[in-house]
């Protein structure tokens, strides 16, 4: 539901670079917030002055909404500000700009969204967004550079603002207005005809969206080709993004193993699934619209095929600092998730690292201890339900859903006991970590009190 409400308005002004997807201490506000907002204000005002549409007022309203949304996101801790990540990204951008001097890069702002969902976006007002989840998904710097090129191409081709312009023009066309008036005049069958009319308009707009994605791939590849990155990685990045269209959280967490302790054995019923009103695998909707026509992006295969026509060359991918940046991003992501009470994601990522390799850094052990201590606090104060999304019997994301079901099945006493047993078991590994020490002490006190 959230998706519907949030995503659809964004379609008006934003092209999600690569389908969908959500941060050591984490700064959620830049040191220069005021000056950043001032720059955004200036760009916004400049864009207002350049509106040429006959229905200027309507276009202005959308630009205003876009600007306000962006400022609200800055104030709502949606973005993280980190010197190391910014420096790294700037070094890639510099390579792109140096190879493509025609890019009008003045006032470009690239922001890091704390979301774990791999995605990037161009807002059309010289602002770009990269989700931390994207860095975790990709395999090398070359792939990352291609995605940045793709987003820059959206801006250079004026896709966002042109789309707003086209839609407003269409919505104010004689044909659309007269059809809408006619439907409104109908005494009977008005909503049915209205929905059909809106469906046609939506499909038409989304079809255009899919077309411009191919254009951004193409121009983005031209920018990318001029750099020294491996051309073939453009296709590989698209493939990776295509793979997450079905399922993002691919690791199944073996909760009954990683959270089984001699002092407090894992209980099977912590994984019990809930029954629903209906035994269905997908939502049943008598008003459902064709899913393919609702896609914002073309199929990955089609995009790869289009890039193939440009004959991308294979060359060696240079080993750089990407894997180090990726590891750093994972730390940042988990800390941001804990800060924002998104404990389901934080537990998933931390346990996924622990089960994947027993020799992982003490950081992940420290985080699991911190997660259980915080989970206890939120549950005790009846705030956990506000921060963890609903369990769903219909979701394709079975792995993250299982984590949510597990958290939901735990009683308050289970939370403190699991947290404490975890600390006792892994004390040797994580005892030097401050967060671990604090969580351990807190959990110890909670268990001693009872």
């Amino acid at each position, binding site marked *: 539901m959230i998706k519907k409400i949030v995503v659809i308005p964004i379609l008006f002004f934003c092209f999600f670079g690569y389908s969908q997807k959500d941060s050591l201490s984490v700064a959620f506000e830049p040191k220069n917030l005021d000056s950043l907002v001032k720059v955004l204000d200036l760009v916004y005002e400049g864009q207002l002055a350049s509106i040429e549409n006959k229905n200027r007022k309507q276009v202005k309203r959308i630009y205003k909404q876009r600007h306000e949304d962006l400022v609200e996101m800055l104030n709502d801790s949606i973005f993280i500000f980190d010197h190391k990540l910014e420096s790294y990204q700037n070094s890639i951008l510099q390579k792109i700009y140096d190879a493509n001097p025609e890019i009008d890069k003045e006032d470009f702002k690239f922001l890091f969204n704390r979301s774990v969902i791999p995605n990037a976006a161009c807002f059309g007002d010289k602002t770009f967004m990269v989700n931390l989840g994207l860095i975790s998904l990709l395999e090398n710097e070359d792939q990352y550079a291609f995605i940045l090129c793709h987003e820059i191409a959206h801006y250079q081709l004026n896709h966002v603002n042109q789309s707003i312009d086209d839609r407003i023009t269409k919505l*104010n066309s004689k044909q659309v207005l007269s059809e809408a008036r006619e439907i409104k005049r109908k005494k*009977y069958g008005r909503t049915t005809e209205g929905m059909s009319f*809106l469906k046609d308009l939506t499909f038409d707009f989304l079809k255009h969206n899919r077309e411009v994605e191919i254009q951004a791939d193409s121009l983005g590849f031209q920018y990318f080709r001029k750099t020294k990155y491996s051309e073939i990685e453009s296709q590989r990045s698209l493939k990776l993004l295509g793979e997450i269209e079905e399922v993002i959280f691919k690791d199944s967490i073996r909760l009954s193993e990683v959270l089984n302790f001699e002092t407090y054995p894992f209980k099977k019923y912590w994984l019990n699934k809930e029954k629903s009103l209906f035994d269905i695998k997908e939502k049943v909707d008598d008003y459902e619209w064709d899913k393919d026509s609702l896609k914002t992006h073309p199929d990955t295969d089609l995009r790869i095929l289009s890039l193939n026509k440009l004959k991308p060359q294979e060359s060696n991918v240079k080993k750089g600092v990407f894997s180090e940046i990726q590891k750093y991003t994972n730390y940042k992501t988990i800390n941001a998730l804990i800060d924002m009470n998104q404990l389901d994601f934080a537990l998933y990522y931390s346990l996924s690292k622990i089960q994947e390799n027993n020799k992982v850094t003490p950081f992940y052990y420290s985080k699991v201890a911190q997660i259980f201590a915080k989970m206890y606090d939120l549950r005790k104060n009846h705030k956990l339900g506000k921060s963890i999304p609903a369990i769903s019997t219909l979701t394709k994301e079975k792995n993250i859903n299982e984590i949510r079901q597990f958290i939901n099945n735990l009683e308050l006493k289970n939370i403190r006991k699991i947290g404490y047993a975890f600390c006792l078991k892994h004390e040797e590994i994580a005892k030097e970590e401050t967060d671990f020490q604090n969580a351990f002490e807190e959990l110890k006190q909670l268990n001693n009190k009872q």
Partner: protein
Amino acid sequence: MMNKKTLITIMFVFAITISWSQSKTITNILNFKMQNSGAIMDNNNDVDGYYMFYQVDKVNRKEREYAINFLDQNLNDVATKKFIERKGTRLLSTSFNNQATMLAFLNVKEKQLVLKTFDKQANEKDDVVIQLDKKVYRTINILSLQGMLPNILFPVDNKGFILNYKTIKDKKVINKVAFYPTNGGDYWEKEFDFVKGKIQTIIPLTTKDDYFILVESLARGTKVNINTNVINVNTGKEIFVSLYDVNEPKLISNSFITPEGNIAILGQYYEANAKIAKHESLGLFVTTYSPDGKVISESKMSWAVDVNAKLKIRRNSKMEDVGYIFFHDIIRTRAGDYYAIGEQYKKTANAGGIALGVLSAALGGGVQTTGYTQLTIKDAYVFKFNKDFQLKDIEVFEKGKSRVPNLYDFGSPQLNAFQIKAVGGFDYVFSQIDEEKDRFYANFVDYERLKDENNKFAFKTIIHDEGELSEDKIYLPNRRRKVITRPLPGKLGHVLIFEYNRKEKSAYLHLEKLNIE
């Protein structure tokens, strides 16, 4: 566990309208209206889902397109089904029996009850249409418009649904219960004979295993006779009836099937010839019947002897410093213990009402007949009995005082309490039973008066787990704030918190688990 931020009326397909919000002309072409919404509950008051009922379109002069949007217990949108019905169709009741979801609609134009069933694949089954007599229709229509129509649909787990309604026979309004199977079984119905001069009410108590237990209340003024009927739910055949005995009047409030397959009936007992809606009870009782209706055992707990040993009894059920206790529910645990959940109340003078009466008289106004007295409701009391119904313990859970003006100043405090209970005046909301974990939750809404702090509203629950009682509470923000908060029924062991932001006109719903330390 979940959260949802959404515009309140737009949980349905019409998220579309938001995407078109830039164009007023376009947005206005849709013309759907939300009719009502609520929780879909089962036998144990466990919320299995929620529904939203919309009128989507006008099909022609007589017909309308409606849609019912189902959300699961975690508020995920799981199904939206459309159908055509007559204009003015109203949704009266919903129920879920693990096999199907049944909805009872009132077709206002044709004066019909329409039962719609959706199976586990969300497929609509054949409708059941019941033609209502004008008189019966009028009663249902008025009560439903006033929001006072009691629930008419009862789930029988994995078997079907029971409809409790009135019909006409020999020109008299009689009560009827009808069973609609969902397991391939047979339909049956049972009619209750008309009793001249008495108001007959059928109150289903329990549907479990092969039994359907109901009470038939026959009232004339404060004189109420209560008969208990045990029916075979598969055939509709009466197994036995326990008739009201004037020499031993009983107010039956609960029933259940014991692990041995016997039938237990619980409630309060009175002295011979007492009027149960008026007089004070002598204590609590439980009678156990064999499946063929023979009394196996009867246990009683008296205020005068048993409770007096733990709380000082002044006379009959009135306790020293306590006043009276109104019992809302009696729950049996797997160990065989019984827990009676009650609230303390006293009849007190209503200062505001008296002042108003004096003012009214001084101004030469009419006679004020109500509002001089009130019920002052205070702490929650939980009585624990062993399997032989011997009182083992009384636990008191502190609550703030609630004052509810009496509907009538005359009558006993008991009668006033019954009247207040009927209009939902007590702080008690409902109980939920978790049979699997052998737990129960008794829920209250409390207004806490705090020292050195602003008074607070709280959702309070008394939880029975592993033989112990504990308490959990959630403070609700002050009602004057820009965000209005309401506790709503949630899935087992949870409460659904509804937050409405008056300024943004947006609603935020989140399920919170009730805590056992």
